[in-house]
């Protein structure tokens, strides 16, 4: 065996996108080496450890991970150095997977109650199956199949195929739940780029990155991938990349930017349009693209967005000269890249904003180019083609949830809409009025609490799976999830196997459609993927022998083919909407409420893990709580000090939370993290903080039906109460002394700043 893993990485550094082929595919030598206890020093007793590659399911990014297993127990999660999405790196969220696995409040087997006022009692899996099948049979016999509703998180891989086969085969409905749904983003990317999959944003090779509201280093789309790229963007190349963040909130990404533009909420698109105006007017962009965007009319079509117009300056709060400079720097840079999302897509005019922002990429013609927007190809296995921009993988929007027709039987997996949807969606009533609710949750969360039957799922470290990463790295990747430890609780199930079992019992065509034989299950489907990849004889692992191939794929956590990039198709006409958008808000309060996803807890799906509760927020260092970020000058005016409990009131409701006095938040903004306020989700999540989502009013992005979660106006008042806010700041006495700054600053390395275009 001549190729070591390290050599592989070296090679991947040399080739453009990490291309390497493991010819013959035997096992790298050192992967088989295990510590010999014979060589231990006498005073040290050490178990033998093994590392297994699999996929992280803690967050939608689904990084490749390797897990250290000692004596049948998972000890430590690291990033998989081979996996194209995260290349050996991982986030706080991935790290805590082992705490989800060994969580003391995990459900250990099926539980059921006869009536919703009763306590749950343990039942056997067989009884649980009978209950589910009886309920589905009743619907079937009454011809009310469409009143069965399957709710999952957005699924990928074979699980998506099974869920879709099951629900369509039965005649039921399937909805995918995403808290603070990114439907507006997906639809906009589909419109502007004509692509059906999320593209890769090549931050690593970009020289000028402008992000509108997307907290891409913390929570947006693919944060571990972005962070890895960002390190290289900063110090990996001869020229340090410039990052401008246009953000109504001082987010983690804004904190890292070279320049932060505290734009007025909702006006991100106006700023982007104004940049487009400047670029076209000054003849800097791609001429054909400019014609395409303006219908051949040039900058005159965009006159209302002139950077010097009173309307633009008033709406954005940014002066004309600054807009002009940023537009010039962007268009003149070698590899400009514009991304947008988060709050930019979550106002009443969110789709307008996102279309304008992504059109900047069209204008500078960075599509499918290094440092630009790189499109992703369809996966190599057709059944896994579950495109999430225009097709089956698209999550349901807030509007869909609001307009849901009353189901009779509800099956819920991996989603907690009771916590994640604002009460205006009325989803709680929908569940209360359902005859029978089956939850597959591993924990008793707010949605599981409404269920009649809970069949807890196994942890992802205990089970099989596959994944088509979203967004991909610009080429085909299939991630393979394998069990790295045995089941900790024997009563837990694989959700895929459950749906396969129901389908067989109900006589659905799932087996035939997915090519399953009798007696085989979800594991065999994953094996089927591996076999199909083998037959292609291309990509990162190749072998004439299937077993060796299978071994190679499992050892590396998946298969990828760097030669499989997406072809750029003829761009359809991308005419810009040149009418002035209606930036409107709900509520009459003085402040714009800008909620944000927690860096460690996500949308709250990880709030049950103590490491993540205790991971300080990067900017405020607050732990184990929800806080209200208020501008320091404003707080002084209002006589508010750190830890004062404030009431935050919106038309949808009110919450109480402690104030964090923040020098970065604009005076017109109140910012609060999302993720806490669980009334039920295990001992570490319950009664910690408040649920910011309950402040969100019924307002949608007009273009997509997404929840406009950044379009609320709130008022604040003091309750007169005060707490010592729990934060890391102050745990360690500051050791900085006047004469010695802890953080030292240097100017950029001198090199030729002149750029060519």
């Amino acid at each position, binding site marked *: 065996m001549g190729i070591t893993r390290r050599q592989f990485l070296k090679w991947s550094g040399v080739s453009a996108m990490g291309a390497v082929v493991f010819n013959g595919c035997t096992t790298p030598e050192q992967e088989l080496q295990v510590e010999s206890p014979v060589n231990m020093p006498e005073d040290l007793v050490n178990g033998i450890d093994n590392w297994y590659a699999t996929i992280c399911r803690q967050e939608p990014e689904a990084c490749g991970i390797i897990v250290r297993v000692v004596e049948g127990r998972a000890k430590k999660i690291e990033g998989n150095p081979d996996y194209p999405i995260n290349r050996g790196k991982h986030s706080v969220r991935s790290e805590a997977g082992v705490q989800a696995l060994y969580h003391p409040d995990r459900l250990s087997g099926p539980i059921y109650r006869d009536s919703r006022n009763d306590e749950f009692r343990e039942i056997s899996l067989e009884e649980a199956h009978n209950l589910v099948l009886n309920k589905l049979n009743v619907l079937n016999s009454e011809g009310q199949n469409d009143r069965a509703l399957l709710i999952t998180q957005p699924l990928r891989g074979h699980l998506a195929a099974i869920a879709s086969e099951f629900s369509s085969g039965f005649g039921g409905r399937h909805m995918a739940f995403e808290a603070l749904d990114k439907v507006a983003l997906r639809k906009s990317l589909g419109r502007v780029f004509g692509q059906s999959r999320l593209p890769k944003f090549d931050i690593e090779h970009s020289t000028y990155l402008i992000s509108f509201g997307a907290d891409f280093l913390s929570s947006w789309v693919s944060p571990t991938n972005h962070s890895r790229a960002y390190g290289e963007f900063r110090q990996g190349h001869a020229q340090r990349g410039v990052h401008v963040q246009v953000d109504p909130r001082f987010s983690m990404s804004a904190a890292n930017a070279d320049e932060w533009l505290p734009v007025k909420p909702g006006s991100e698109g106006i700023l982007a349009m104004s940049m487009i105006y400047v670029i076209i007017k000054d003849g800097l962009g791609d001429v054909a693209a400019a014609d395409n965007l303006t219908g051949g009319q040039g900058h005159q079509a965009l006159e209302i967005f002139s950077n010097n117009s009173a309307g633009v300056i008033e709406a954005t709060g940014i002066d004309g000269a600054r807009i002009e400079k940023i537009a010039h720097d962007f268009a003149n840079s070698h590899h400009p890249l514009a991304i947008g999302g988060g709050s930019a897509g979550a106002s009443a005019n969110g789709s307008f904003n996102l279309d304008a922002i992504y059109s900047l990429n069209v204008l500078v013609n960075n599509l499918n180019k290094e440092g630009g927007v790189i499109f992703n190809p369809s996966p190599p296995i057709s059944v896994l083609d579950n495109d999430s921009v225009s097709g089956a993988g698209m999550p349901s929007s807030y509007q869909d949830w609001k307009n849901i027709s009353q189901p009779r039987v509800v099956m819920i997996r991996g989603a907690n809409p009771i916590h994640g949807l604002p009460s205006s969606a009325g989803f709680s009533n929908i569940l209360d009025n359902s005859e029978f609710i089956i939850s597959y949750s591993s924990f008793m969360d707010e949605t599981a609490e409404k269920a009649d039957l809970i069949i807890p799922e196994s942890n992802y470290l205990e089970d099989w799976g596959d994944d088509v990463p979203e967004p991909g790295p610009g080429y085909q990747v299939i991630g393979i999830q394998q069990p790295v430890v045995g089941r900790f609780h024997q009563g837990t199930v694989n959700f895929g196997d459950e749906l396969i079992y129901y389908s067989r019992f109900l006589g659905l065509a799932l087996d035939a459609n997915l090519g399953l034989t009798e007696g085989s299950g979800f594991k065999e489907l994953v094996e089927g993927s591996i076999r199909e990849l083998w037959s292609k004889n291309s990509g990162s692992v190749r072998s004439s022998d299937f077993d060796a191939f299978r071994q190679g794929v499992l050892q590396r956590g998946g298969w990828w083919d760097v030669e499989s990039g997406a072809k750029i198709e003829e761009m359809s006409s991308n005419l810009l909407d040149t009418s002035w958008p209606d930036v409107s808000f709900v509520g009459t309060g003085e402040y714009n409420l800008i909620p944000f996803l927690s860096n460690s807890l996500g949308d709250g799906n990880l709030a049950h893990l103590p490491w993540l509760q205790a991971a300080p927020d990067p900017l405020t260092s607050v732990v184990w709580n929800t806080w209200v970020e208020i501008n320091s000058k404003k707080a002084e005016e209002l006589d508010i000090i750190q830890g004062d409990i404030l009431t935050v009131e919106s038309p949808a409701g009110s919450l109480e939370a402690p104030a964090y006095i923040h020098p970065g938040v604009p005076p017109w903004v109140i910012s609060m993290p999302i993720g806490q306020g669980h009334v039920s989700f295990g001992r570490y999540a319950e009664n910690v903080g408040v649920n910011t989502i309950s402040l969100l009013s019924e307002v949608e992005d007009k273009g997509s039906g997404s929840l406009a979660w950044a379009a609320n106006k709130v008022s604040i008042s003091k309750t007169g109460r005060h707490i010592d806010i729990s934060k890391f700041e102050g745990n360690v006495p500051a050791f900085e002394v006047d004469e010695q700054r802890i953080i030292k*600053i240097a*100017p950029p390395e001198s090199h030729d700043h002149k750029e060519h275009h």
Partner: protein
Amino acid sequence: MATETINHKWGMVIDIDRCTGCQACVVACQAENNIPLNTEDRFRQRRAIEWIRVERYWEGEFPNIKARFIPILCQHCENAPCEPVCPVYATYHNNQGMNVQVYNRCVGTRYCANNCSYQVRFFNFWEPVWPESLKNQLNPDVTVRSRGIMEKCTFNIQRLRKAERVIEGQRGERITDENLKEGNFLPACVQACPTDTLIFGDWNDPSSKISNLKEKHFVDGGRGYKLLGDLGTQPNVIYLKKVDINAEHKVDAHA
């Protein structure tokens, strides 16, 4: 095991221009080193334990505000103020450049923590407690520290010892950046760090990345500096300055 002893001097370079403040290092350290759960109470009492932490400094105010991040861990000083004050020799400097805490010698005087200029030593005010099932995750290679014991960053010595046994003992090779990475022997914080802010290696290996970075950046105009360098503690951890595109306008007198 009769193997030739190779002298290492472990150290780290921290490029704060790459750090985004994401906390991946902080949680990775806690997962690897059996650090007691930092409950809400512990933060309120100012007794949370983080062997590595990310400090955030504000600069200016809205709208001209900057937040700067810096990861801080034990600097493994060559001339460590914490060492001479320990009455029982529980804290000492080993022959690989590391400042080491011997748990079963420690009697909890906390003199070392008082004398540390960097505030990176943490005292166990309580016996650590985990729910029974979470104990399955504990790392068998790392001692759980009991009440009354001082603890601190070890550069994950358990991983380095294993690297010595595997790479030098079994294979007879010298430890390099490459084989440390390949065998998952790097400190957990370094391995996790998504942006490669933390770079670990051997100062005695002239081809190591940290040696090269030191050579490149400890010259005029380079970005290298030591935390509280004037104290003369001679840290084995060095920092590379944050780059600010406006830096020429505000000259740092101490740069």
